[in-house]
């Protein structure tokens, strides 16, 4: 029976990326019934919310979604479609695996880290005011509940996937109340997993250690803003946003996405690297229990990269569709 998956084709280069990924998944012979749902700029232009309620309801009903990059309109009153989806679907765990890919040279050999970023609280609650004519005020909202579930998700992931270490990342030396709450709960939950080595680091130190001692780290768990910044840093270490996958998990549904933007200036040019969305799709296949297809696609991707077939961001000249076709051909070989 086909797996049902909601599909958001995205803005800018999103539809081109989706087409390449659909082609590869088809070549991997995974039976997926794509259910297209709308979100993004087209909705705004049609006078609808950037993520219509019908889209939220459909993803809730189906339970799984794949999302291409979308554009956040700049201007007053605009909200991010990505954050809207995470918040309204309560996708509290942003999971970003970063690892060295054969064929994508970086100075960070042996990189293999999974970052768990809390996705629904912190400054991303977007509670902001001009308090006076001269003072802007953002509310950093951290709850015990929010900390507990992301920290537990990280430890559970480590336990189930044979990961040995979990590090909690914070700035509790300065934000003693908000980050102090995260740190206290991290220590409480860590005590429930004695087989997993755990300690905590301050975010600035963690960033320095990521680029100097990356092999020390295994699973990192942190708050929303630190996770946003640290996961892009780690994506750069992996080879760039063009190859960095992402997944957002809640208790009832999961949404898989490339972490880069919609690259509107390249729209229609068949140029952007589909690897990030493809690897996000392999995370989705794993979630759906299609582990062989996941392994097959990753193997075909690596074989393609090793042959030197690369898009412009990795120093090659392959097009989006051409790169997808090359991976599909490897799958058929």
């Amino acid at each position, binding site marked *: 029976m086909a797996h049902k998956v909601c599909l958001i084709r995205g803005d800018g280069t999103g539809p081109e990326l989706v087409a390449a990924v659909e082609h590869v998944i088809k070549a991997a012979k995974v039976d997926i019934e794509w259910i297209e749902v709308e979100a993004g700029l087209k909705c705004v232009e049609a006078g609808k919310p950037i993520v219509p*309620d019908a889209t*939220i*309801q459909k993803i*809730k009903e189906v339970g799984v979604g794949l999302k291409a990059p979308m554009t956040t309109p700049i201007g*007053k*009153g605009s*909200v991010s479609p990505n*954050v*809207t989806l995470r*918040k*309204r*679907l*309560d996708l509290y765990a942003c999971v970003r695996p970063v690892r060295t890919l054969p064929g994508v040279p970086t100075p960070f050999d042996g990189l293999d880290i999974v970052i768990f970023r809390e996705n*629904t*609280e912190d400054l*991303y*609650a*977007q*509670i*902001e*005011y*001009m*308090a*006076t*004519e*001269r003072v802007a*005020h953002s509310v950093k*909202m951290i*709850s015990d*509940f*929010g900390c507990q579930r992301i920290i537990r998700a990280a430890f559970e992931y480590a336990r189930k996937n044979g990961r040995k270490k979990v590090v909690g990342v914070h700035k509790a030396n300065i934000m003693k109340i908000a980050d102090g709450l995260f740190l206290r709960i991290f220590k409480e939950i860590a005590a429930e997993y004695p087989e997993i080595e755990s300690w905590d680091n301050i975010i600035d130190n963690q960033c320095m250690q990521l680029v100097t001692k990356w092999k020390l780290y295994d699973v990192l768990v942190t708050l929303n803003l630190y996770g946003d910044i640290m996961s892009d840093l780690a994506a750069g270490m992996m080879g760039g946003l063009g190859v960095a996958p992402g997944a957002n998990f809640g208790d*009832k549904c999961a949404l898989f996405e490339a972490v880069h933007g919609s690259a509107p200036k390249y729209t229609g040019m068949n140029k952007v690297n589909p690897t990030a969305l493809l690897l996000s799709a392999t995370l989705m296949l794993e979630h759906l229990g299609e582990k062989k297809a996941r392994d097959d696609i990753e193997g075909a991707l690596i074989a393609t990269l090793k042959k030197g077939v690369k898009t412009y961001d990795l120093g090659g000249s392959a097009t989006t569709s051409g790169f997808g076709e090359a991976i599909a051909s490897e799958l058929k070989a």
Partner: protein
Amino acid sequence: MPLGEASGPPQKGNRPMMNLHGVDVYLWHQGTPDVPKEYGAMRLLFISNRGTKVYPPPAPDMELLDWPRCRYLSDAEVTDADIDALVGHLTGLGWKWTKTQKLFRKDGVDQFSQPY
């Protein structure tokens, strides 16, 4: 290197003042409170929890914490006394509030963010 020039006196000019139009009242209450839908010129625009709108429906299927935010807003300008009266009214009804934040507009533009 001294940077006295960078932290000179605050800029002054003919910038328009912010006008008061309402208040966000944060309650200590588990769930979505059944607070008055309007008070004076202000009406209850929404209730949010963890930054996400939970009233009016549809409410997202999410865990609610004990810190809902009730936004009361008026199209017309209101006074500090109007805000005091609203907050006092909520207290009188038995609601425990933990924080309030006045809502300003400047040149008709909201000086506050919207919920998800």
